[in-house]
């Protein structure tokens, strides 16, 4: 009997490789760099293509312990959240590949303050950094421009860079040798369009990471899942403006949900609070990794450990 032949897709495209961070030799101060992308097939299908780099895990740290994080999450860092430099060190010790520094929208947030925080984080950890502003376009501009200048040469990822504010952030990335996190609201065409706008300003494609936005398990993850699959398939089919590694923030989304926040007053069928909350973050992240995420930003050290174990198991 003739054997069955395993069908292999003959993809023509390849995701670009993007390197985050710069060592002293490369004009920065990072102990090491992290490269993502380079895939020539869908996630982990090694039987038909290359997966040169495993997805990277970033841990989110804040300049101040955020008031809206559940206690479970803050306690997991064992006091380190009181000081952003300690927190970044703890993230590195927990095994993160990247530190995602995010500024809270607070009164003290100003350009000089942001510079000082960045300097402290850079000296506390040797990992490459992703830096997010407080999440309001004008304010993000102010903070990120200062950060870009202060971290010159470090190949930081500046985020989020949206349609509303991409010009200022891209200009800062161009001037100081950084990358951008290009975020569009869950739409293949909007993602492409933003990548084109950014590229048209002169930023090389190798310095753009795209962020298709996502939702948490139970709160819209299926949309994020499918948009990422479609973007990745377009990339492999040869559509150059989608051939960028993808970053998503499952930690932020998952820890906003009631399942991750409510320890009491919920149905018994939801199960043990601590296990359920962490499972919520882990499944949000693991599902998005299966649909093409190259960088996931997480919050809990146990989620980091478990998502890492899954990636290792998949990379083999």
């Amino acid at each position, binding site marked *: *009997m003739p*054997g*069955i*032949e*395993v*069908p292999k897709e003959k993809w023509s495209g390849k995701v670009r490789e993007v390197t985050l961070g710069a060592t002293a030799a490369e004009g920065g101060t990072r102990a090491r760099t992290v490269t993502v992308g380079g895939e020539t097939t869908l996630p*982990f*299908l*090694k*039987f038909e293509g290359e997966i040169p780099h495993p997805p990277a895990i970033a841990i989110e740290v804040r300049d101040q312990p955020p008031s809206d994080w559940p206690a479970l999450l803050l306690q997991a860092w064992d006091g380190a959240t009181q000081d952003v430099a300690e927190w970044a060190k703890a993230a590195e010790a927990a095994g993160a590949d990247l530190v995602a520094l995010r500024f809270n929208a607070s009164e003290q947030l100003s350009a000089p303050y942001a510079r000082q925080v960045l300097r402290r984080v850079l000296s506390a950890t040797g990992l490459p950094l992703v830096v997010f502003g407080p999440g309001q376009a004008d304010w993000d501009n102010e903070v990120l421009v200062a950060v870009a200048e202060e971290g010159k040469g470090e190949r930081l990822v500046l985020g989020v860079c949206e349609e509303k504010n991409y010009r200022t952030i891209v200009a800062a990335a161009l001037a100081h040798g950084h990358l951008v996190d290009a975020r569009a*609201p869950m739409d293949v065409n909007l993602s492409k369009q933003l990548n084109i706008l950014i590229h048209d300003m002169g930023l090389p494609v190798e310095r753009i990471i795209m962020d298709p936005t996502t939702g948490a*398990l*139970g*709160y*819209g*993850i*299926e949309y994020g*899942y*499918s948009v990422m*699959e*479609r973007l990745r*398939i377009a990339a492999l089919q040869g559509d150059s403006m989608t051939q960028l590694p993808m970053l998503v923030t499952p930690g932020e989304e998952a820890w*906003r949900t*009631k*399942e991750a*926040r*409510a320890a009491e*007053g919920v*149905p*018994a*069928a*939801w*199960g*043990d*609070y601590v*296990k*359920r909350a962490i*499972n*919520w973050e*882990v*499944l949000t992240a*693991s*599902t998005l990794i*299966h*649909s093409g995420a190259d960088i996931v930003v997480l919050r809990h050290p146990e989620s980091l450990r*478990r*998502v890492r*174990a*899954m990636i290792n*198991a*998949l*990379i*083999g």
Partner: protein
Amino acid sequence: MALTGLQIYKLLPASSTNPEVKAHANCKECGYPTCLAFAMKLAAKQADLSLCPYVEEESKRQLEESAAPPIRLITVAGSAKKLEVGNELVLHRHEKTFYHPPGLFVRVKDTQPDAAQVAKAVADYTVDYVGMSLSLDGVAVEAAGGDFGATVAAVKAACPFPLILMATDPATAEAGLKAAQGTTPLLWAASAENWQAMAQLAAQYKVPLAVLGPNGDLNALADLAEQVKNAGVEDLVLDPGTRDHASSLAAFTQLRRLALRKNERKVGYPLIAFAGDDITLAAQHIAKYAGFIVLDQFDPAMAYPLIVLRANLFTDPQKPIQVLPGVYEINHPGPSDPLMITTNFSITYFSVANEVESSGLPGWLLVADAEGMSVLTAWAAGKFDAERIAKTVKSTGIEQKINHKRLIIPGHVAVLLGEIEEELPGWEINVGPREAVDLPNYLKTRWG
């Protein structure tokens, strides 16, 4: 694989090489003006082949085979619940949709004294998600050296869900099948060593049979499945024998592609996966192609996220789940109780309604027709603006039910405050919290 209209036309009398058959071409007896028109209706599944009396036997066979789903639909049943898996048509949900959510089973061993208790816990477990009551699907009973028949009987008595009988020794398997009579369990598994005896049992007891291949060797699996089928068992489930993330992903993806893209009948069956107690492996199998997923433990903190993930990935991407716009009464509100407004996206509506309901506070919840979108999505798409909000207030008759003119809007659309005030003169618009979790506290402290 489904044929196109033209492919079907090639099999109808107008294309026949037999002059006697061809003589009927376009005779209209089927009720359509031409054979081609009939072929198009068949392709669109709007007509039945039996309407044409002249189709040749060989064409009929080919047409019937092509109409069979590329992945066979398999049914298992307990005493009070059944599960259908298979019949999937796409590799990626955005290509159409995923149809039959994989069954989630919990494994117990026949050496385990509490097997029946676990089975009962599985049966009793239900969880509410956006208004749907969701549950696990069954119990897998494994022969591990205990009294298999007695354990199956006890599990069956404790749990009305379908069972998977895990026994590779035919005599043991038969003891289980006898104990399970009256239900339709899945029998696991026929392997290279025991397949004749297992096939015979599956045929005799009329149950679907899982075929276990040697770790990841799909050729061996396909050949074994073919042999079992030839021995008279049509309802098969495939187990490629992989148990880790990487090799499972490769095997399950390849099997799905073989069935859908290559129309490979030998592997056109649902797949069974064993995830142990690893939640990421179970989740992988929900996204990547399992029909049955067996977990080694029952833990609500693990079951709930998996059930939600399954519900999410198996919703039709073309239609967001919605609730009907209108006035919803929560906890028997009176005329002076709070009035809130939200959108008709199911996830949004239930996050709000569940919060208010479980707080015990009475309230009126207005649901605007936002075309099934979440608050911010609808706002960004112009489907939840001041005009629509005002229209919802005016058209639902809520003004006759309450004695005040105060409306709480979601915190995320605080920017609409001024415009809504303009659209609803005389009304006081209150900006509520951003997340629904904070609503009960808001209502307690800020309403009154």
